[in-house]
């Protein structure tokens, strides 16, 4: 019995026989949040850490988070990428307190303990004390005092880390369809064109659900529906990994006729609404198909995005039950020419914290969080496309991928 077990499962039983209903309590409960740290982010999942191109040279490092756990990603002298918890093994100071840099070793400022770029403890200051007084006793074994290490895998230029030995390789974790779909987007070497961050006043799961929610896209976002980026009448569909954990939702320019839908009036379709300058809606078909929008979600907290020519990774960082931070890394291809760069700069008006499309996903999460406080026992309902977790070809009017996320959550949480 671990006497330090802070995270003993709360007396919480899933209140429904499937994942088509979710109790509001999961968005506000402190104990569940603590349990998520242990069973999800430090559990059998792959946490997105960064892109390889952000630490191109040996010695380059970047700091990031797996929810509450601060992490260092560093490229060592052999060019290997390693990740470790950004917590000194001595008294727990942050080892790297700057967001990025280039180093030959990891040295903690507090008492000058030094680690190599794999996280092994190299030296302890004054280990022999002074004048034979103080210092370490012989029982101290450097090998037992390294930084906590993550298992790292690189995939299509992205760097992932896991705390669990059981997590299968990334490609198996993702499954064939996700692998194919990510291949399609990250088709060439990428470079970073910009960073943004968005602080959501809501639980992280609300934003993840939003990403998996192919039903909302054409209903919440006027720009999607009115300008034909994502329209119910457009082709495409959603795919879900066998595990149910990951999904992709895509839209094609091809229209599928459907009078009934044509007739259905929704706020988000404003045919009279026009842009004076349409440059930002321009779409260069650079990925060899006519897909306007392809959203890949990787459990728990990564999105790989293609919206027209806006490419990005989105890394979500849960920061307590009531807040989360979304890091946008806006991408281009290394071989972009001037025009393509200019086009991406224009197009990125659509995404990010001020994006004509994406800003609205920032608004709704906070609204749900506010109502979640009201009565934690009541439940959301997700009836679209039944109660199962099935892919859907030709239609995105389903909540199957969201139900799949909740399956993943329950798988990890053991709830």
């Amino acid at each position, binding site marked *: 019995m671990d006497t330090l077990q802070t995270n003993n499962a709360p007396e919480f039983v899933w209140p429904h026989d499937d994942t088509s209903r979710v109790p509001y309590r999961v968005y506000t409960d402190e104990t569940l949040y603590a349990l998520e740290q242990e069973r999800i982010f430090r559990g059998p999942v792959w946490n997105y850490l960064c892109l390889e191109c952000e630490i191109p040279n040996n010695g380059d490092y970047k700091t990031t988070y797996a929810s509450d756990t601060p992490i260092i990603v560093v490229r060592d002298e052999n060019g290997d990428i390693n990740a470790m918890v950004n917590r000194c093994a001595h008294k727990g100071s942050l080892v790297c307190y700057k967001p990025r840099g280039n180093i030959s070793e990891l040295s903690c400022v507090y008492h000058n303990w030094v680690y190599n770029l794999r996280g092994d403890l190299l030296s302890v200051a004054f280990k022999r004390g002074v004048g034979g007084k103080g210092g370490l006793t012989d029982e101290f074994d450097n090998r037992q005092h390294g930084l906590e290490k993550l298992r790292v895998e690189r995939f299509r230029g992205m760097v992932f880390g896991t705390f669990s030995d059981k997590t299968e390789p990334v490609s198996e974790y993702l499954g064939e369809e996700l692998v194919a779909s990510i291949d399609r987007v990250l088709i060439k070497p990428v470079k970073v064109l910009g960073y943004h961050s*968005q602080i959501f006043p809501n639980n992280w799961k609300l934003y993840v659900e939003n990403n998996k929610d192919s039903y909302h896209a054409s209903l919440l976002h006027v720009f999607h529906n*009115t300008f034909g980026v994502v329209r119910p009448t457009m082709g495409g569909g959603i795919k879900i990994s066998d595990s149910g954990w990951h999904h992709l939702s895509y839209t094609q320019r091809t229209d599928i006729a459907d009078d009934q839908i044509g007739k259905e009036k929704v706020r988000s379709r404003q045919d009279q609404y026009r842009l004076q300058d349409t440059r930002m809606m321009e779409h260069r078909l650079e990925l060899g198909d006519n897909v306007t929008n392809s959203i890949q979600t990787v459990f728990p907290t990564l999105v790989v995005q293609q919206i027209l020519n806006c490419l990005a990774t989105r890394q979500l960082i849960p920061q307590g039950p009531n807040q989360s931070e979304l890091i946008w890394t806006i991408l281009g291809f290394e071989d972009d020419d001037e025009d393509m760069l200019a086009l991406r700069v224009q197009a990125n008006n659509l995404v990010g914290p001020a994006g004509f499309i994406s800003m609205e996903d920032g608004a709704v999460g906070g609204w749900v969080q506010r109502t979640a406080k009201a009565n934690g026992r009541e439940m959301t309902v997700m009836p679209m496309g039944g109660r199962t977790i099935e892919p859907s070809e030709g239609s995105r009017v389903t909540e199957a991928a969201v139900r799949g996320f909740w399956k993943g959550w329950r798988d990890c949480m053991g709830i």
Partner: protein
Amino acid sequence: MTVTDIDNGLMLRLRIEALNADYIHCIDDDRLEEWPDSFTEDGVYRVTTRENADLNLPVSLIYCQGRGMFHDRISALRTANIFEPHTYCHSVSALQILESTGGVHRTKSNFLVTRTMSEGAMMTFACGRYLDTIVEQDGALKFRERSVILESRRIDTLLVIPI
């Protein structure tokens, strides 16, 4: 430099401060349809972060070039986009005239935006620098370019009203 030169330089300060005041009140008063008028026809408005600027990264949060895009930002805000009603209150100060030749003035100033939600919650939403290129046009001053450099890369919830 003669006294007159000094005076002219100082007069220019005042005219630019007046321009900034007009710019800010049109936003804070929610007269956003007038916002594009502070810019020249082909003016540029961009909002980016100190991080992106320091790393020379080209993508902004907002990028408008030419009246059309200015208009579209406002029309989307009025008719297309969904967000919780809120207002800004700008502070602007520390105007610095970096260069002033041939009726083209490069200036810098600091801003602080306090956001108030309709229910009353206030927060420091953004702070940073205005990097401006200001030109004379029919006896008035207009922004040929205004680059808003946010100190923080963090945006609370969303950014829809120009800064």
